[in-house]
């Protein structure tokens, strides 16, 4: 975890420098291209449209290949034509009017990460439900699953039996689907960031924070359901074994700490997933950026090899972070349920 934080810090600080270096070179070319496009656009009478489209996809900094990759945008990229995969076309997502709740306005227009989350959810549903149906059919026919369904069963059972149930405590079975859904959703969202034209929705603080807040509410509700009125002991420190004066003093000191402890857990979940998913992408892009900075095929070999290695690491991290998020969610639920005993 600390290594991840370190790497992200280092790379965040170095990114703009690399970008700057690249920008010096590419700025002129970009400006020329832009001018040419505008001229063309004017010729066709589409200047406003072209400009608007570019603006719609978010601010574009010449030479900065990292920021657009790790941030959300209003456009999704897709392959324009079969071979020139490095020149994606951009589809501008529809922009809806913000919804006003009192004086608070929420813009619920879909963004790239919304689309990625939706895709992840769709893929998870299709894969798991197909596997579940095959599983049930095979179990009905031969008493055991076969092939793909057996593989999915192994994963589902691993998350259920090794991650969820041992940590959730006694009679924690009803929370197991939540842990499993978390695992598969985060896993697929992580993996979608590794495929071309994909984007890592779990590298967006809004997504990880929402998942962490959902987990927070599940944990607290689990605590209330398991402990009843005893749940208040997890907020207010009131130790009856202590002398009354010390008890009051400890109450005043410890209660805020308990509250901070409660908030720290989802905060840690948020930052852990965000930082880990962002860091790897920045490393890969920074390594690729080196190739363009040095403008040399010979020097390009080493960064390319390293980028491949980091991508493989990312593949592992995608599984690891989904595992850790769901494991910690299970541990937090188990802790607050156990506190009654």
């Amino acid at each position, binding site marked *: 975890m*600390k290594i991840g*934080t*370190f790497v*992200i*810090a*280092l790379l*965040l*600080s170095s990114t*703009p*420098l690399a*970008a*700057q270096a690249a*920008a010096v070179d590419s*700025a002129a070319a970009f400006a020329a291209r832009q001018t040419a496009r505008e001229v063309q656009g004017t010729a066709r009478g589409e200047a406003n449209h072209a400009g608007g489209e570019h603006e719609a996809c978010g*601010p574009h*900094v*010449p*030479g*900065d290949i990292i*920021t657009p990759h*790790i941030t959300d945008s209003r456009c999704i990229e897709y392959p324009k034509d079969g071979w020139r995969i490095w020149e994606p076309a951009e589809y501008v997502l529809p922009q809806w009017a913000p919804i006003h709740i009192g004086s608070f306005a*929420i*813009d*619920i227009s879909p*963004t790239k990460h*919304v689309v990625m*989350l*939706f895709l992840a*959810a769709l893929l*998870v*549903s299709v894969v*798991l*439900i197909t*596997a*579940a*149906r095959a*599983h*049930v059919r095979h*179990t009905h026919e031969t*008493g*055991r699953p076969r092939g793909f369904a057996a593989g*999915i*069963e192994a994963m*589902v*059972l691993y998350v*259920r039996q090794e991650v969820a149930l041992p940590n959730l405590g006694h009679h924690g079975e009803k929370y*197991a*689907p939540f842990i499993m*859904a978390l695992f*598969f959703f985060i896993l697929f969202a992580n993996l979608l960031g590794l495929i071309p034209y994909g984007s890592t929705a779990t590298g*967006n*603080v*809004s*997504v990880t*924070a*929402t*998942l962490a807040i*959902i987990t927070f509410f599940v944990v607290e509700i689990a605590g209330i359901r398991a402990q009843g009125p005893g749940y208040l002991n997890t907020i207010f420190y009131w130790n009856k074994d202590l002398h009354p004066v010390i008890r009051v003093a400890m109450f005043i000191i410890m209660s805020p700490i308990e509250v901070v402890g409660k908030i720290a857990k989802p905060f840690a979940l948020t930052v852990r997933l*965000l930082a880990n998913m*962002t860091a790897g992408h920045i490393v890969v892009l920074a390594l690729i950026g080196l190739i363009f900075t040095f403008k040399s095929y010979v020097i390009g070999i080493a960064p390319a090899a390293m980028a491949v290695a980091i991508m493989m690491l990312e593949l592992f991290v995608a599984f690891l972070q989904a595992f850790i998020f769901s494991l910690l969610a299970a541990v937090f639920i188990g802790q607050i349920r156990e506190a009654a005993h």
Partner: protein
Amino acid sequence: MRTLFRSLVITALAAVPALAQEAGASSKVDLLSPNYGLMFWTLIIFAVLFFVLAKFAFGPITKAVEAREQALEDAIESAKRDREEAARLLAEQRAALDATRGEAQKLIADARVAAERVRAELIEQAHTEQTNMLDRARREIEAEKAGAIAQLRREAVDLAIAGAGRVIDRNLDQAANRQLVESFLASVTPAAVSASR
């Protein structure tokens, strides 16, 4: 060490927008400010996904696996029961076999004793019968002998008398006597003699 990391992060985060601006961007790179629309969508998508998966994926898989585990447990349990049952039956059979074998031995011994007794009785009976038959035969022989002796004696007496009669007749008339005796002798048979008496 921690402070170092923290200061690095803060420096980096602080430096990013400034440097990005320097590079010519009009807005800063903001990784940590929440987008409420995205949060809303995350919540909706995850909530829907959770209910869909719980109902259509995890439910059936868990149920099938639990059913399989239950079936396996039942199979193991019933195998254990069957084995115990088999062991019990085997012991029972063995005990029954032992009992039967003892009984058979006893039966054979009894039969042997009975056969011995029957044989002795038969021999005894045969002896007795033999003795009886011998006695009877002896008695009959004695009786026959006595009868034969008596008859022989009577025959002898008759013959002697007949002979004496002829001698007397001859003496009376030599020629005539001789002729008479001879004709008698020619005609006589022991039965005729006894019948003529």
